[in-house]
Each structure stands twice: as C-alpha cells, then as structure tokens.
C-alpha cells in the first residue's frame, strides 16, 4: 500500500488525490448509497452563488460522442441557504468538503467567499471563474487574465483558507490565465471546466439545449484537458488539480503524470456512482505495480 496523501498547501491536505468535481456529485449525500464518500480525497460541492438561482430552462443536457453537454446554469439556493441548511448536514463528512463559488460580478464572488470563510469545516473554496461577467458584457472572468486577476485578488483579500481557482479551457492561452491567477494569490488551480459546445437535432432543426450552447464534458475532452494540465503545470509554482474526462484509474494516472497533484472526477460519476472509490484503488495498484512509494512521485513524472 503506497502513500496516497497529497498536500495541496495552505491547510488543504487530501488523504488521496481523488476528488469529485463540482456539479456532478451534488453535496455528496446523493452518492452515499454507492460508496463510502468519506474515502474520497475531497468533495467539491455544487456551484454556489450569492443569490438563489433557478438555472436554465429544460432541456439542459445532450449526449454527444463520448461526452455530454450541460446547461444547468448554476441552479442553487444561494450561499445563505447553503450556510444555514446544507452546511450543518455535510460539515461532519470525514473528508474535505470544498465549496465551488460562482458569481457574475466581483462583488458577488467576494461576498460569497467571505461567508464561506466563516465555516470551520470548509477548508477550501474552488473559485469558478468561467461564468459570464455581467458588468463586462457577458465576457467571462476566466478568459481575460486582467479580469481574472482582479476577481482572484479581491477574493483573496476576504478568504483566508485554501483558494483553488478553476480555469476554463475556452481560451487562447491557458498558461497566461494560470499565471495571472497564481500572481493574484491562488493557492492552487484546477482545470479544466467544460468546453463550450452545441448540439442540434437535425430532425426538429432545433438546438437540443434550451440555451443553444452548453458545456462539454466527459472522455471526449480528455486530450484537451491533459494538454492544458501539462502546459500549466510546467509554468506554475502552485499545485495543479487536473480534470476533464477521467473515467478510470488509468486516466487519473495520466493527469498525474502530466503534472497534476490531484484530480477531480466529474461525468464519470453519472455512469458509475462508485467510480471515485475504484479510482483510488486503481491508483494505489498502479503505484504498487510500479514500485512507487508515494503518489507524489507520479506528479509530473512524464518522460518527454
């Protein structure tokens, strides 16, 4: 049995490198029938915003070749509801419960992060900067390094624990984005969020999603995600958390080799609700088979 522990810094230590991705694992409780969720390295709960959001109209999902598009639109009851109603239920889960924080203005992000900062049992937030910036005409925070820096700095001022920043892949230079958020004080970066895509039903001649476009996830995005993790981990000093299309332990190992210190599993949970636990076991087996003592030996061990 190899050592699976991973220290992402600033108080965020994982018992193993496998977390579940925001929006795909609810608040964890939905999966408790299928696995011991406390065995996960961390659970990143649903995207939380300052105010209640109803999300987008149905239909919100389309299956695509080896992937899916979603247009959930951050449906959630807002941070106050989270603090009062959900936090008490989940705070004793014996793993890292991390809140994914979203917003449409710098003020929203800051206000939400400040409230989460007060919750003792939440060791980290994952700042989702791929949402449209309403003040700047819908351009997302995550596609302009300057704007990203601004929001991350502002959150950094009010958030004292581990600040993970999640990057969107819909950019020309992922390294510019990563460097910007690192400079602004991120303790780690996670990538990738979904690729922007679209599905059409030729029979009805309509888009499948109510919002026309949506976010692509699943195995189809893995090559793009691996590439970005590799590029980013080469230039960053802070740890990188890799995700995008991880379906099994082999995929997870690939992300670690590319430079990730930990991984998140998203869409795969829908197909196999016990996949998180299986990936943890599989990584351990890989380490044993390859005579490695610690999972940290895998990070960035790609031979190029």
């Amino acid at each position, binding site marked *: 049995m190899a050592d699976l522990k991973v220290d992402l810094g600033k108080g965020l230590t994982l018992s193993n490198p496998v977390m579940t991705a925001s*929006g*795909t*694992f*609810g608040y964890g409780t*939905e*999966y408790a029938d*299928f696995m011991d969720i406390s065995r996960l390295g961390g659970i990143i709960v*649903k995207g939380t915003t300052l105010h209640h959001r*109803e*999300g987008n*109209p*149905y*239909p*919100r*999902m*389309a*299956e695509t*070749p*080896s*992937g*899916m598009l*979603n247009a*959930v639109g951050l*449906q959630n009851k807002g941070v106050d509801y989270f603090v009062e109603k959900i936090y008490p239920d989940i705070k004793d889960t014996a793993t890292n419960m991390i809140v994914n924080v979203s917003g449409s203005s710098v003020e929203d992000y800051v206000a939400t992060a400040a409230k989460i900062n007060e919750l003792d049992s939440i060791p980290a937030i994952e700042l989702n900067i791929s949402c449209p910036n309403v003040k700047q005409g819908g351009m997302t925070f995550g596609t302009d390094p300057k704007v990203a820096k601004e929001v991350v700095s502002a959150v950094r001022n009010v958030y004292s624990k581990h600040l993970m920043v999640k990057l969107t892949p819909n950019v020309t230079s992922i390294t510019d984005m990563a460097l910007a958020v690192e400079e602004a004080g991120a303790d780690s970066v996670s990538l990738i969020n979904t690729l922007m895509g679209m599905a059409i039903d030729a029979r009805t001649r309509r888009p499948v999603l109510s919002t026309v476009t949506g976010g692509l996830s*699943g*195995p189809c995005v893995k090559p793009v995600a691996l590439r970005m993790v590799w590029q980013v981990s080469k230039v960053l000093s802070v740890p990188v958390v890799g995700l995008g299309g991880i379906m099994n332990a082999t995929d997870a190992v690939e992300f670690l080799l590319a430079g990730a210190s930990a991984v998140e599993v998203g*869409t795969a*949970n*829908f*197909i*196999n*609700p*016990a996949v998180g636990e299986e990936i943890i076991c599989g990584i351990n087996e890989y380490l044993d088979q390859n005579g490695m003592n610690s999972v940290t030996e895998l990070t960035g061990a790609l031979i190029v």
Partner: protein
Amino acid sequence: MADLVVESLTTMPNGQYYRLILRGESPLLDCRPGQFAEVRIDQTDVLLRRPISIHFVDKERNEMWLLIQKAGKGTTALSSIQRGNRLNLVYPLGNGFNATDNDYRHPLLVGGGVGVAPLLMLGAAFRNLGVEPTFLLGARKALDLNELDEYEKFGRVFLTTEDGSLGEKGFVTQHSVLSSEKFDGVFACGPTPMMKAIAQYAASHDIPCEVSLENRMACGIGACLCCVEDTRNGHQRVCADGPVFNINDLKWQI
C-alpha cells in the same frame, strides 16, 4: 447498483418493443410502482446510462421486468443482449406513484405507447390492496399493444388504437369508458400530449392525477440537475423528486 442476469428477451410483435426479464443473484431490492432503473449499456459508444421504468417485479422468481422501445442507439444496442449476459442497473430510483398510500377505489391507469411500462406493476399493487384497477391503454396500431393477458390478471383493460385495429379507434382520451364510468384517481404515463389531455380530463372531473415524466437524465440520482421540470416549487429533479408528479404541481397549460 447491481448486476442482474438476463433471463429472457422477448421481442414484441411490432419489432420495436422488447421485454427483458432480469434475474437477481441476490434478492432484488424493494421497488415501488413508478420507480425506474438506470441501465448501463456496455460495449457500445453509448456514454450515459438510460432510464427505464420498472415494468414489473416477480418477487417469487426474484425477477425484474423491463419493457423497452428501440428509440435510438442505446435501446437498440441493448436489444441484442443475450440470455445469461449481465446488465448493470442502478435501482430503484425516483419516487414512484403515490397511489398505494391513498384510498383509491376506482383508479384509472392510462398508458400510451411504451409508457404502459410502469402501469403493470402499479396495477398489481392496487390488486394487492384489494382494489381492481382499470387500464386504459392506447397505441397507434394493434401490434403496439402487447402482453394484454398480463394486465388482465390485475384489472379490466380498455384499449384504443389510432387506426382502429384494436379497441376503440382514436386516442385514449376519446375512449367511451371515460364518460361512462367515474374514477377517483388517474395515473398516467406516455407521450406528453397524451398526458396533458388526460390531465385535462382529470381536472375537469376533479379527480387527482399523477403523471410520470420522462425528462432527459444524466445521473438519475439527483446530483446533476439536468433533468429538471419547472414546477410550482421551482425547478424540480424528475429523477429524484419525480418521475411521478401530481399535475397540480406542474406548470402545464391544461
């Protein structure tokens, strides 16, 4: 989550529907009528599981029945599964019909197309409570109406076909039994226009009505929020808060 063993696959006369009988190697979990399973379709390029209603559970034989229409690539690929193969199911999912929690004396169970699937188990549940359900089943043509003897075990069966080849000609909502008898509860599953029409009938006769929705799902267990229906309580998850809804909770224009 469990692997069940394929006991038999019977293709229905229309060539489009098939019934799978699955056997548990350990005792099947308790299922309520209207609940469903998320079926994993292996060795194809189908990524997500497919939600399929639990058609019937034969407790003595420890068997679960599914009635499936070849709608696209997943359900078509599944139709070539062989006896003895294993099928991975996440079940039971969803709320199921509230039927059995209440005191219905003359329940009407209305199904259209493959939407008849959950009604067999629902009818059996009523019969177990000592109530004789009335099935009203509709389809395009006679060939699409199958296993009628199974329904007849539990209640009376009325039929409609659009081409008049079996039962009364027309849609289920035009069947004469709707005017000749009085029901005290309606349970419907089938195409949305049919369910809306039935909901209208129920509303105008002031009868409680539950419908089973088939929104597109990703996780099936309430985690992803992909399957929501806009209800009077906001966006509700069809997989976890449904698939069965009382029509009063829906925002349907009826």
